[in-house]
């Protein structure tokens, strides 16, 4: 039957971003040492304070490594990583300074075209300003000039170090200190690039800012660092997307993202994460060990994290909000999907410090195949957080009976006036739901995709429109071959 063969075709369709770009790369020799860190810093002509900061981070990391303080509390398993066997810096070889897109290696532009990234000016209509990070360096930032007219800085992290050293120095590590955790220490020592955005007082950023991360080189870790600061009354919406080639070995991605929102500022941070997840048997794939944290420093400031996590062999991330300012608001909307042998331990931390702070957590987990996932979330209400409120909702959807879903909510409430609510559900896509859809003429794959998208609706509607569409497609694709 034609329907049956369609199903097979769908199930066989593979990760479509798994190609490798043949481009000349420049590497720093494998291994991690003070020399590696100095080399990276020198490549970027960094000021002394930054090199010193990196070296302190390295010392901290080496200390933790020696004491074997690799975090083990997450519900994930993987062989221990040899930190001396990977490259810490890989960059497309090209002229050191790029004046315009015309100077970018055409092979690189073709890669981004295949990924569907709006690098070129023709995409101006889409209203998205893009910074693209290829392995370790940022290769192009579009619309920079237009943004600068409004005083908005949006550029690669390396460039920010040169052009806005005071801002970088003031805020770098102020939300996630280098000593914060094992992977944050590693990132702080060797981060090679990333994105930087600063929106000045009272300015509402007129377009979505977006960064596209791509791992291309083999045996290379990607360690990017993103810093976004919204000054008083400013607002910005930022989106990151990620892909990587298909390889049999695992690759490490340990990023750090720091957000700072001052009085009345608002930052909306959205992620569509589609790193290579490994094959059906669990070979290869990205280890996505990421620290993301936002500080609502100012009164009435607002930070929201929206994430759609469909890729990576292992995801370990907890985008968090520190609600310092009175009346500040934090939100976390998450869809995490694990298929085949993917593992995810993800969630958030909402730290209520200021008065009348509010937070919302909506987490939707979908497990298929032999996928395993855990929601892990901390809601902490400090003694001075009078009138703090939190509402958490964690729903899990299971497809098949070989996958697993776990929920680990942690509550620490030190103020009696706080109101904290937690709801959790686990459901299975029922045979009766599928049959109902099929009886109306929908294929089984379309039915699953429809049910899953319905399940995730509360989160998807938080994404900017065009990315919501992309995310919906991605959810459908990631589930291929998971039913029947």
């Amino acid at each position, binding site marked *: *039957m034609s*329907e*049956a063969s369609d199903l097979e075709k769908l199930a066989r369709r593979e990760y479509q971003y798994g190609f490798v770009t043949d481009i000349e790369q420049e590497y720093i020799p494998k291994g991690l040492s003070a020399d590696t860190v100095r080399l990276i810093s020198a490549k970027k002509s960094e000021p002394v304070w930054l090199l010193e900061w990196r070296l302190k981070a390295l010392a901290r990391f080496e200390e933790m490594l020696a004491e074997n303080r690799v975090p083990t509390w997450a519900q994930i398993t993987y062989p221990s990583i040899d930190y001396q066997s990977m490259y810490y810096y890989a960059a497309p070889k090209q002229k050191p300074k790029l004046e315009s897109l015309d100077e970018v290696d055409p092979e690189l532009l073709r890669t981004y075209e295949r990924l569907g990234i709006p690098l070129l000016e023709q995409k101006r209509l889409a209203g998205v300003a893009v910074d693209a990070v290829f392995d370790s360096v940022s290769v192009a930032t579009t619309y920079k000039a237009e943004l600068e007219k409004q005083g908005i800085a949006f550029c690669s992290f390396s460039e920010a170090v040169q052009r806005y050293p005071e801002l970088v120095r003031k805020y770098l590590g102020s939300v996630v200190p280098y000593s914060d955790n094992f992977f944050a220490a590693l990132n702080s020592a060797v981060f090679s690039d990333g994105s930087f955005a600063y929106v000045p007082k009272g300015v509402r950023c007129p377009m979505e800012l977006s960064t596209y991360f791509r791992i291309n080189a083999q045996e290379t870790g990607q360690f990017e660092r993103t810093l976004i600061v919204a000054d008083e009354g400013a607002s910005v919406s930022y989106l990151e997307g990620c892909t990587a080639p298909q390889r049999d070995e695992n690759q490490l991605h340990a990023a750090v993202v720091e957000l700072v929102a001052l009085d009345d500022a608002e930052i909306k941070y959205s992620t569509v994460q589609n790193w290579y997840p490994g094959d059906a048997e669990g070979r290869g794939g990205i280890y996505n060990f990421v620290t993301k944290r936002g500080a609502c420093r100012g009164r009435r400031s607002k930070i929201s994290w929206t994430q759609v996590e469909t890729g990576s062999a292992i995801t370990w991330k907890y985008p968090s909000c520190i609600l310092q300012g009175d009346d500040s608001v934090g939100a976390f909307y998450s869809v995490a999907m694990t298929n085949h042998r993917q593992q995810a331990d993800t969630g958030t931390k909402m730290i209520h410090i200021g008065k009348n702070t509010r937070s919302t957590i909506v987490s939707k987990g979908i497990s298929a195949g032999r996928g395993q996932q855990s929601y892990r979330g901390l809601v902490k209400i400090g003694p001075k957080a009078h009138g703090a409120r939190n509402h958490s909702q964690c729903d899990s959807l299971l497809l098949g009976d070989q996958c697993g879903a776990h929920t680990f909510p942690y509550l620490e409430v030190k103020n009696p006036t706080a109101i904290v609510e937690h709801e959790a559900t686990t459901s299975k896509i*029922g*045979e*009766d*739901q599928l*049959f*109902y*859809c*099929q*009886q*109306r*003429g*929908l*294929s*089984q794959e*379309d039915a699953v995709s*429809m*049910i899953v*998208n*319905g*399940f*995730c*609706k*509360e989160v998807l509607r938080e994404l900017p429109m065009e990315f919501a569409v992309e995310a919906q497609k991605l959810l459908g694709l990631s589930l291929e071959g998971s039913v029947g």
Partner: protein
Amino acid sequence: MSEVLLEIEGLEANAGGKPILRGIDLVLRAGEVHALMGPNGSGKSTLAGALAGRPGVEITAGKVRYRGEDLLALAPEARARRGIFLAFQYPVEIPGVSNNYFLKSALNAVRQHRGEEPLDAMEFLTLVREKAAVVEMPKELLGRSLNEGFSGGEKKRNEVLQMLLLEPTLAVLDETDSGLDIDALRIVARGVNALRSAERAMLVITHYQRLLDHIVPDRVHVLSEGRIVRSGGKELALELEKRGYGWLEKEPPPREAAAR
């Protein structure tokens, strides 16, 4: 005589691992409405499930031909696209999927199979409003999640609305009247009657004669322990209403009234 749409021959099937259907023979021609009655557990819903391809209904013997094609070899969605519609006794809820979106996806899947262009949002909206009016379906129910929080009557009306949109060739209504008050019953029957035509056939499964006052059948069959034990005209339903099912066992069927 009109075209034979459905031909069931010696159909036996298990449900939940137990034999339920023990040899069903039934022929439906275009233009006909047949009623299927019988006590609880006699196999009515299993027969509906067997025709639609419900998982868990396992065919153990017999044949079903639909417009000359081997129906049992087709996946459920392939049967649906060829014009077989099952109005569910217990319609499922799908949270987060709007009724409109679901109806449009289903309609366009069926249209694609028929080689018709998909309807765009505006064309669909015009059509669905027109059909919703027939079953007095409030507009706000179209925007809500599919069947979520619908009352029993609203769910059944939604089934009939789907049927009106998809315009099936063979409609199987599985106790669409159960749990309906008399007004809802009238509305549902109006929807079903709106679809009666010389090209399509319907198999109406019901416990009660009262539905058949509104949807007048050409033939009535009584199912008992997985077999059709009596067939007749619409007067058979009236007799069942009066006398129950018990007498059927005592009185052997007249020869001419055997299932055909």
